[in-house]
């Protein structure tokens, strides 16, 4: 496309660096994605919520020259075609620029993940999701540049886009803008295709609406009408987001049809999804070491299995400890984490009640006492509990019934 000529001017490179830096900054606010190729692109998209308004500002800044009334007049031709091509080329130019920046961030994320022994397949859905906020933000920036072709339209574009994203999120609408950055376990989950398609359609409608406003602005050169049209487009974004939200129920993921686990060890047994099993032997050995004080105290761990969670809403079968995503197989996991992962050995009903119950409080107290006991054992210091009391507490946790006297007469360290 000839509109892409001159894409890499000094100003556009500066904008690209600012956008990619913001995107990258959000990426490294967490480390739980490192090592999991199935989750890395999802988290790499998290930065777009912050960075896409910046690309809206960059769009307004970089395209304002092309959309100035003088240049539009020079390039104006017969019919609506020239106006459409003027806007389309400005938008495509910015989308390409933003995609290059985000692709660089995605590549860095995948390389870092791969460097730390990544396992699993790379999903394609996050790459489609990434296009949505980028295309909408670029359309908003181009529309504002077409209405006000001045430097300050870029600031206005940033504020407007942040404002719109914020309204869309707090109104529970959904959310072609608020994509990526899931913090729940993705083990056993897959992207829900219907949600992806609905949000893609919503993003396309919003983008097309703002681009239409931009075409009308360069065509009609009528400031009040263009401004009104822009306000209508903003309303359209929220409306479309709300309608789309009603059809997706916010469910970006759904349980995978089939999840294959690979297990290792016994007392306890460790099971990780195949995609996340690259460090299974290492994790199994670490959990065996962490469980040793419990076994020495006489806790029966033969029937215990630690398994990666299937995600929210899934049943937690008794006899299995469901691990949070990256809880034991991510980077930066400490010996203490391995030990503490053993301390919810049953899926007690009290863990899932709306209002905390006294039993829940006692379950947590018992787990806390055992955590301190395990830490003391590992550190070789004198624990506050006897081994017998530790075994009793663990058995009570497994039975989901911790008596008051079992936790009340212990003086925690």
């Amino acid at each position: 496309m000839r509109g892409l000529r001159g894409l890499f001017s000094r100003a556009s490179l500066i904008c690209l660096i600012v956008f990619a830096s913001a995107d990258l900054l959000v990426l490294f606010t967490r480390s739980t994605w490192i090592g999991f190729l199935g989750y890395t692109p999802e988290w790499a998209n998290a930065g777009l919520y912050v960075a896409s308004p910046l690309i809206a500002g960059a769009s307004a800044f970089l395209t304002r020259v092309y959309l100035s009334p003088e240049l539009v007049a020079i390039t104006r031709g017969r019919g609506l075609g020239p106006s459409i091509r003027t806007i389309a080329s400005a938008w495509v130019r910015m989308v390409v620029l933003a995609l290059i920046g985000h692709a660089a961030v995605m590549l860095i994320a995948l390389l870092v993940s791969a460097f730390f022994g990544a396992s699993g397949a790379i999903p394609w859905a996050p790459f489609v999701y990434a296009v949505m906020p980028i295309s909408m933000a670029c359309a908003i920036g181009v529309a504002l540049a077409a209405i006000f072709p001045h430097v300050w339209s870029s600031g206005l574009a940033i504020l407007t886009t942040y404002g719109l994203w914020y309204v869309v999120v707090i109104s529970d609408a959904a959310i072609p803008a608020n994509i990526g950055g899931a913090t729940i376990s993705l083990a056993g989950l897959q992207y829900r295709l219907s949600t992806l398609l609905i949000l893609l359609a919503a993003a396309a409608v919003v983008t097309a609406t703002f681009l239409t406003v931009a075409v009308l602005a360069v065509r009609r050169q009528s400031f009040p009408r263009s401004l009104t049209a822009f306000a209508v487009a903003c309303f359209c974004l929220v409306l479309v987001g709300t309608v789309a939200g009603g059809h997706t129920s916010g469910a970006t993921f759904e349980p995978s049809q089939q999840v294959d686990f690979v297990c290792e060890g016994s007392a306890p047994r460790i099971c990780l999804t195949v995609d996340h099993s690259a460090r299974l032997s290492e994790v199994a050995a670490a959990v065996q070491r962490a469980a040793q004080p419990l076994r020495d105290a006489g806790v029966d761990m033969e029937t215990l299995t630690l398994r990666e969670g299937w995600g929210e809403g899934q049943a937690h079968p008794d006899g299995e400890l469901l691990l949070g995503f990256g809880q034991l197989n991510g980077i930066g996991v400490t010996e203490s984490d391995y030990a503490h992962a053993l301390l919810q050995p049953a899926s007690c009903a009290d863990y899932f009640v709306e209002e905390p119950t006294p039993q829940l409080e006692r379950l947590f107290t018992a787990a806390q006492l055992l955590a301190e006991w395990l830490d003391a054992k590992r550190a070789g210091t004198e624990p506050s509990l006897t081994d017998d009391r530790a075994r009793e507490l663990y058995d009570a946790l497994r039975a989901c019934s911790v008596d008051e006297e079992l936790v009340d007469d212990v003086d925690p360290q």
Partner: protein
Amino acid sequence: MGRTCVEVRGLTVSIQRRTILEEVSFSVCDEVLGIAGPNGSGKSTLLRSIERAAWRQNDAVRIGDPAMTAPRVGYLPQGFDMPKGMTVREFVEYAAWIKNSATVRASAAEAIEAAQLGAFADRRLGHVSGGVAQRTGFASVLVDAPDVLLLDEPTTGVDIHQREVMREIIAAQSPGRTTILSSHIAEDLEQLCDRILVLVKGRPRFLGSVDEARAETGEETLSGALLSLTAGVE
């Protein structure tokens, strides 16, 4: 190229309750009409109004014959920024593509040659002089072979040499076209225009040839005639 006329009948333009143009009328066919007048006399507004009439209905301005397809109007505004990252050739090709020229490269090459930009074609617009930028704008106007040229002070802000080049280019492009150009510079009007329209405070003060302007005012030079026609206006 067919005969394309611009007919302005009783054009009045008001912006925010201020009358910029009042009852302006003239007709131009296949000739060069110069618009002269002091700052704020409505020269640019007149050209913009004609340009807008090409794509937006305006009963006071008629361009071409209603029986024929919409005429192409090329408009070069006064003072414009250009994308500094593009080369001269890239920008002219971009303009040709935007205007849906069937042969983008060929039309751009032709326009670049017509605007005498061959030596600058691969220079970035951020690194060219004001005169070359102005000629790049002109080349972009020429890419779809417009029937009508509207040039708003095309030689203002450039050095004497560039002004001479620009005049040469306009003179070469004018035959067979209807051209309306505004200028403060008497030499431009004298060398390029068949007739001149003098505007004062948005109203037509004089319409006729350069010789007629001199004769009417009794001045020897066009500069003197223009000063005389606009006397008393600040």
